[in-house]
């Protein structure tokens, strides 16, 4: 089984993307999509250093819900900040000490930070323990850091670590 599907999640993702790209659910495309879903993970086996394991699906879906809501709010908040007076903005760099170990988890966390309210992840230290984040408007740096750790890092740790 694991020889044919070394990465079941990737296979599922590929077949979904294929069907969406062709915008159809016809039998022929399901067959073609399945062939791609089997071949691509086998051919790219060398690139995947570790298997992706999702330990807690419920937390993952909850995280995605929180994430989508935060992206919507982030857009409005940032739009307001952009339109407000430049001199009232308090930009800040903050260093977040990461507790999450899994590399996929770290990259999802960094992406989430970039897409949510007023923060962009700028740099990751070589040992993957510290993430440098730039905030557009952070009156209280420590509070922003705690918020990010509680809201995004904790659920991601439950899912991947």
């Amino acid at each position: 089984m694991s020889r044919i599907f070394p990465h079941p999640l990737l296979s599922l993702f590929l077949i979904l993307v294929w069907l969406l790209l062709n915008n159809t659910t016809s039998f022929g495309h399901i067959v073609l999509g399945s062939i791609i879903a089997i071949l691509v993970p086998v051919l790219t086996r060398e690139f995947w250093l570790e298997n992706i394991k999702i330990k807690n699906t419920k937390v993952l879906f909850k995280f995605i819900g929180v994430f989508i809501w935060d992206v919507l709010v982030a857009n409005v908040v940032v739009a307001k900040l952009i339109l407000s007076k430049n001199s009232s903005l308090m930009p800040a760099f903050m260093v977040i000490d990461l507790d999450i170990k899994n590399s996929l988890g770290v990259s999802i966390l960094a992406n989430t930070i970039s897409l949510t309210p007023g923060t962009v992840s700028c740099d990751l230290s070589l040992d993957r323990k510290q993430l440098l984040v730039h905030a557009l408007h952070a009156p209280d740096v420590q509070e922003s850091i705690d918020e990010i750790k509680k809201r995004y890092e904790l659920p991601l740790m439950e899912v991947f670590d």
Partner: protein
Amino acid sequence: MLEILVSIFIVIGGIFTFIGSLALVKMPDFYMRLHGPTKATTLGVGSILIASAIYFSIKDSGITIHEILITIFLFITAPVSAHLLSKAALHIKTKEIERTKNRH
């Protein structure tokens, strides 16, 4: 009715995309300019795609949802490009404005 709904989404999308681009002109330093295009544009492009999905689903009699793909790819690529830009900026020591806290 359909046209009203679609145009509302397109106008919302247009406004947010415009604000995102405005940030590029208005913000004082490089790191602050990064915030506009990474965030304000996600909702901007998102609403335009919703408008597209609604319009073509009703027009061509059949649900079209491959706009979802554009959203997914956008969500994957936007933060990565922002990250690379800011990493490069830090590397060549681009100056941030004076009042930035914890300057690097």
